């Protein structure tokens, strides 16, 4: 298992940096959450880690530098991202979406993994042969998660998995993430606006404010913390 270590990472679009001098660390099996308000740079942080935007600074994964590698190279090294908007391959069937997630694997357990995640998400099993574009938003979020997990990542990046979903579905989703973490030992790095749910899951928290990490620490430090309120409400 590998550790993600980020030092002095800045990233943005064109010349304008959106995040500045970010340090963070995710240990094997750990669940880490980045909290922050709209526009704090959460999504940019995720996209920098998954290789979708150019970065400066150092990012290592399992001791290997991954800064400015292409997204597909980073994915093959064991980091899978569940992007905001879910990234559904709409014209492919649900099953094919899952096979895409496993397309870089050469082992013989792909089918077993598909069966496993379809068991976890019966809605996906029921619609296995339908075009994935016909799934509901919640189902597409499940599909995105399952697709990422089919790559058997060591680290899963989830960008606002709760966005646009009904509360009951969000609850299922977080309990699923917790199960995945417990059963497979996959480390999770979440970005969330839904602080309460995220704090239940995570053991370590970073607070992002307009592009800077302003606080970090074990989750227990943050329960009822003023810093969280400030990060969200600017108070």
């Amino acid at each position, binding site marked *: 298992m590998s550790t993600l270590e980020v030092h002095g990472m800045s990233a943005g679009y064109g010349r304008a940096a959106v995040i500045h001098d970010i340090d963070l660390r995710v240990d094997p099996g750990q669940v880490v959450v980045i909290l922050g308000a709209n526009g704090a740079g959460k999504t940019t942080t995720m996209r920098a880690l998954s290789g*979708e935007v150019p970065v400066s600074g150092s990012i290592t994964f399992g001791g290997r530098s991954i800064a400015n590698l292409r997204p*597909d190279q980073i994915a*093959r090294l064991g980091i899978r991202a569940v*992007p905001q908007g879910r990234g559904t*391959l709409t014209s*492919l069937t649900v099953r*094919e979406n899952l096979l*895409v997630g496993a*397309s870089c694997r050469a082992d013989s357990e792909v089918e077993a993994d598909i069966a496993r995640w379809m068991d976890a998400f019966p809605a996906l099993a029921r619609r296995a042969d339908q075009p994935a574009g016909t799934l509901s938003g919640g189902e597409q979020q499940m599909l995105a998660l399952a697709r990422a997990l089919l*790559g058997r990542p060591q680290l899963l990046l989830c960008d606002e998995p709760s966005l646009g979903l009904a509360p009951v579905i969000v609850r299922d989703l977080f309990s699923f993430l917790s199960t995945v973490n417990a059963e497979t030992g996959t480390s999770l790095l979440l970005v969330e606006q839904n602080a309460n749910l995220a704090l239940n899951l995570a053991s370590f928290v970073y607070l992002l404010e307009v592009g800077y990490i302003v606080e970090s620490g074990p989750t227990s430090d943050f329960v009822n913390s003023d810093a969280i309120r400030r990060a969200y409400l600017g108070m």
Partner: protein
Amino acid sequence: MTLLVERLADGLTNGFVYALMALALVVVFRASSTVNFAQAEMALFTTYLAWWMTTKGASIWLALIAACIVGFIIGAVTERTLIRPMEKRGEMPTLLMLVALFTALNSIDGLIWGLDYHSMDGLFPGGIDDYISVAGARLYFEAIGVWVAAIVLLAVVFAAINKTRLGLRMRAAADNPTSAALSGINVGRIYTIGWGGAAVLGSIAGILIAPISAQQLSLATMFPVLIYGSAAAIIGGLNSLGGAVIGGLSLGLAESLLTGYVDLIGPQMHQTTALAVMVIVLLFRPTGLFGSRLEERV
């Protein structure tokens, strides 16, 4: 009746070639969201190459294989060196680049092989007696060979795209490049392979059509194929593989029947017919007959 069968057969022969060209255009469009105007000229280059090899004593089948390999390289190199750097600058520069490539390739063919018309041996027996009679009409083996070759090729392409790992990656990269990359697929390499594969399809289409084309093998051989092929691809919906095939076959048949039976159109107007059919289809179905708009539920 005899005339009808002959016209249907002619239409089918051309239609299959148009279908192959349309399929090549669709494969490229799905990868790079651009219509490769140089597709037919890439094919003309490799067809010349094949013809030149046969004049040096090589068998046409060996020449076909060489043309496919060279075609793959031309397509792949074009994508990697001309198209991908251009794409960041938008659609228009890419399109201009392809039009430039169209003219450049045509001129290079002229420079190397001259402006003469050449008669080229086909893959299939093309003698005066190589035919079977159906309802009094002569169906030449040359034509039947084109049908069979095209059907086999189409079957191979569809199986490759729908049933193989590479095909799955191609469909994923066409559907949502970002997601495909995040799943570990090297999208750039997939596009390169797509362009190469499309040029192979074009090469085969060129070698099928040149021996039976009215233009024989000349600088003008592939231009009508591009017009009909792109009209077929657009009628089919530009991103639909099946649509390209149906578009190609129906345009081939429409061309043959309309120019045959409607005096007003005649041989002079037939390329106009292809474009008119395309315009009419687009008026009623802007995404083509089988094209899909991007629809997403949230």
